[in-house]
Structure formats: C-alpha cells, structure tokens
C-alpha cells in the first residue's frame, strides 16, 4: 500500500528526486565549483576588462564604446557567457555519464522515474548550479563598478535565460551522442568558441562585416548580451527588439527541452 502512494508522488515530483541526486553529486565537487565561480570572473575582469579595457578607453576616450567604459560594455556579455558555459558543463557531463559512462540513467529508468523526468531533473539541477555562478559573477561585476544602473540585477535573469536556452539544446544534442570524444571537442571548438567570439561580446556586432553578423543573430549569447546591456547601462534598443530577444531565447529553451524529452525517452527504451 505504502508503495502505491509513493508511485503517485513519483509521477508528480520525479524530476525533483533526480535534482536531489544531482545535488549529491555536485556536492562532492563543491570546492571546485566555488573556486571556479569566483576565479573565472576575477581572471576575465583583470585580463580582458582591465587590461584590454584600459587600452580601449585610452584610445577611444571614456565612453568610447556604446557610450560607456569598456568594462561596463563587456560586463553583461561576460555574465551571459559564464552562464552559458556553466549550464553546458552541467548538462553535458551528467548526460554522457548517464547514457554512456556509468549508464546510471538506465538505473533511474528501472524505477517509476520516466525519461522526461530524468531530462528535466538534470536540466533543473544544471540551472541551479548556473544560478550560483551567475550570482557570484554579478556581485564581482558590481564590486568592479561595471553595473551602473538600478535595473542591472535583471541582467542575472537574462544570463540565466541564455544559459537555459543553450543548456536545453545541449541536453538534447548530448542525449544523441554515441562517440563522445569527437562530440565534446566539436561542440567546444566549432560552436561555443565561435559564438563567444562573434556574438558582439567584445565589440558591437554592428562593427563586424555584414556577412559575419548572422552568426550573432542565431547566437543566444548575442540576444542575451543585447538585453543585458539594456538593463545594465541603458544600451538603446527598441521595444520590438526587446521582445524579439526574449522570444528567441524562450523559444529556443522550449524547443531544446521538447527535443530532449523525446530523445531521452527514446534512447532509454532502445
């Protein structure tokens, strides 16, 4: 009798049990996670923000890039890329682990837990970890004086949205992987790195040749960066574009999750 009741609870809260298990796993890596969360922004701010920033500001005069200091211009882009990187790591490795290395997704699926719940659980846990990264990053940016306006806190949610959109697609793609070595290298070098470089991260997208600009348009990072700049220093964009950026990111997130749900279920029952 007791188990009948439990089964109904699993059908409702199954994804949260997966989150709980993921947290237990992450807890083993807590010092690495916290160190990375602090060190990553500090290193970026010192090298690119301050190093390159002083060069840019000296050349252009203060307010030379989009009307603000270079560090202020750069901050929302760095925040969003940190969110994306963190979210990707946290969905890719558990998914490879679950389907290929330890095959523990198959163990989860031999309980009342379904494929959808496993996918959703891994995803939610990844976003929780990403949120920690984003909050730490945001406070370091604040201390560095890179967040001048009162609406700057909204940049955290924009960054989360970018991380969420990227992570849902990666959750789907990783669930299709059979040969992991090639996949991880390919994703890192052919997708993430180019998007990082060509999404208007270090300079406005408009200063690139028109032929390269579409890379930015399809990149969640560019959409998040535009929104982030709007919130952190009032970068001027139209209401229409604000809508476009939000819709692009949320649709990508929803599409990725839908595909991931379908493929998790399919692969577990192969």
């Amino acid at each position, binding site marked *: 009798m*007791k*188990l*009948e*009741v*439990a*089964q*109904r*609870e*699993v*059908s409702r*809260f*199954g994804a949260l*049990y*997966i989150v*709980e*298990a993921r947290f*237990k*796993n992450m807890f*083993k890596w807590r010092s690495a996670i916290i160190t990375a969360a602090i060190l990553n922004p500090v290193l970026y701010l010192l090298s690119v923000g301050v190093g390159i920033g002083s060069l840019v500001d000296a050349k252009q005069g203060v307010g030379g890039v989009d009307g603000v200091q270079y560090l202020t211009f750069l901050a929302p882009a760095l925040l969003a890329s940190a969110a994306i990187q963190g979210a990707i790591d946290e969905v890719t490795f558990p998914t490879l682990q679950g389907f290929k290395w*330890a*095959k*523990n997704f*198959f*163990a*989860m*699926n*031999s*309980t*009342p*837990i*379904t494929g959808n719940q496993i996918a959703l659980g891994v995803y939610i846990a990844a976003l929780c970890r990403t949120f920690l990264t984003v909050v730490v990053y945001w406070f370091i940016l604040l201390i560095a004086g890179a967040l001048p306006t009162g609406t700057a806190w909204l940049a955290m949610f924009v960054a989360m949205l970018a991380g969420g959109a990227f992570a849902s697609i990666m959750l789907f793609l990783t669930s299709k992987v059979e040969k992991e070595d090639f996949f991880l290298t390919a994703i890192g070098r052919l997708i993430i790195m180019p998007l990082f470089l060509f999404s208007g991260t270090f300079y406005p997208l408009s200063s690139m040749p028109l032929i390269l600009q579409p890379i930015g348009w399809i990149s969640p990072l560019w959409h998040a960066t535009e929104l982030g700049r709007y919130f952190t220093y009032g970068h001027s964009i139209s209401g229409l574009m604000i809508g476009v950026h939000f819709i692009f990111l949320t649709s990508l997130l929803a599409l990725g999750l839908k595909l991931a749900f379908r493929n998790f279920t399919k692969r*577990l*029952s*192969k």
Partner: protein
Amino acid sequence: MTSLIFARSLTKTYGDFVAVDQINFEVRKGESFGLLGPNGAGKSTIMRMIGATLQRSSGELAVLGKDPEKFGPQIRAHLGVVPQQDNLDSELTVRENLYIYGRYFGLSKKFLTPKIQELLEFAQLEEKRDVKVEALSGGMKRRLTIARALVSEPEILMLDEPTTGLDPQARHILWDRLFRLKEMGVTLLLTTHFMDEAEQLCQRLIVMDKGKIMAEDSPVELIRKYVTKEVLELRFGSDKNSQYVDQLRQKCDRIEQLPDRILLYTNDGETLLTEIVGSGLHPITSLVRRSSLEDVFLRLTGRSLIE
C-alpha cells in the same frame, strides 16, 4: 497461485532479426524462475520487456496484471531490477546510492534510514557504507546492486546474469544471499548462462536458444527428461578423439564429441568405464559425473552454453 508475469506469443524483432520468437511462459508468486541460455539467446531482451523499458513487437505480456506498454512507471514501482552491467553512481558512497535509489521510488527518508541499515547488513557491506562505489570490488558492487533493487520491497526481483564476471568466491557469497531471498519467499526471475547457477537457484526454468524456448521444467525434471543420470567424459588426446567415437558409440545410449573430449551418456558411468578399459581402450583421462543442465542444453541444441 496467481501469475505475476504472463507472456503469450511474446515477440521482439529488430528489423529482420527476431530476438525473441513467440514465447509463452508464466511466473507465479513466490517462485524462482530462470531463463537459461547462451549469450544472444534473447534473455536480456525478455527481461527488459518485463521491466517495462523495452516495447514488445507483438504478442501478449502482463506484469503484475498490467500491460507494461501502458503502465510502465506503475509496474516498475514494484520491480527490483539488477541489470547485467552494474549502473551504480560511482561517485556517490554505498549508502548514498541506496538512498537516492529509494528516493526514485518516492520513499521517505524516515522509511529509508532503517531500510538502508537492513540492506547493508544483508549485502554484508556495513563496513563499506561510507566508501565511494568506485573503490568497491566487483562482488561488492554486485551485492550493492542487488541491495539497491530491494530498497523498494519489490514484488519481483529481476536479475540479469547476476554472477557473470565474478570470481568463484564472490559468486558463492552472492548465491547464498539470493538463496536467502528465495527462502524469504521473494519472487525471483533470473537469467544466466551458468548451469550450476540455474540448478542452485531456480525451481523452474526455461532453456532458451536463438529467441525460442527449447524446454521448460524444473532442473531435476529437465535432466531426467533429456539426458541419462550420469556422463562419462573421456579424453584420448585432441587428434585421436574422433577415431574412437564409432567404436564407443555402440557401448552407450548417446555420445557427444566435443573439441577436447568425448561425452558418453549412461546411467552407470563406472560400469561403462570398466567395460571400455576392458575392451582394450586406454583414454588419457576419464571422469564420471552427474548429468547437468549443460548436458540438457547440448542435447537440445547440439551446442555448449558457453562458447
């Protein structure tokens, strides 16, 4: 007795390949039921269909009275699954593995705390409770996987090749644990390609080959039905075995020539051996043993279980 698993014309195909070919069987409550057959016989495929993680291609299947295709999670809530390959969470400790698995069944911490203690004792892993799984031996991992499958007090415990890859000592420890479960009245469903495992643990079994059932009965009955009481194994040296086969054939009911030895089926091995030696034949080695399920399989398929 009620049947917990009921299969009628159960079939699974992958394209043109028929992995499970129209098989019928029933498993009753409290029974320990085995699927014996070589690798590739379709045993694991059957287990996964029963475990509601693989859809059948055709035929009928009811597990705990329900169709696994429609009631996957509801059925899985009452199964304990021990897969062929351990899929523990290697970065978590022994205790944590039991805990999170129990959570997947929606069990509360209050229920799980004493349950985990009980299972650690059962699996003889109390001293390893806070050790990471990656540091355990193969036998310990296997025991943990079985303990994990028991955390939800399942109606059926399903074990896919439970002792494959273990050394003899670890196997015996495991058999002892499984035997206890059997005594406690847990319904066991297990696959194996070890005939001694099937003989020790199964009350009833089906012998499978290439997706089909070759025979079904208790181990004792299978041996009685298909082979003689004893087997005389003779070795004349690899090149010479074949030249004696015809001569020996006249002396017994049935004879099997394997690459390294000749098997003579008889109800009295010693007498047959005396007679053979008396007729002037001198095998290098000779052995009289009781017939086993291995011989049943050889009789039914003309092949060995382990190739």
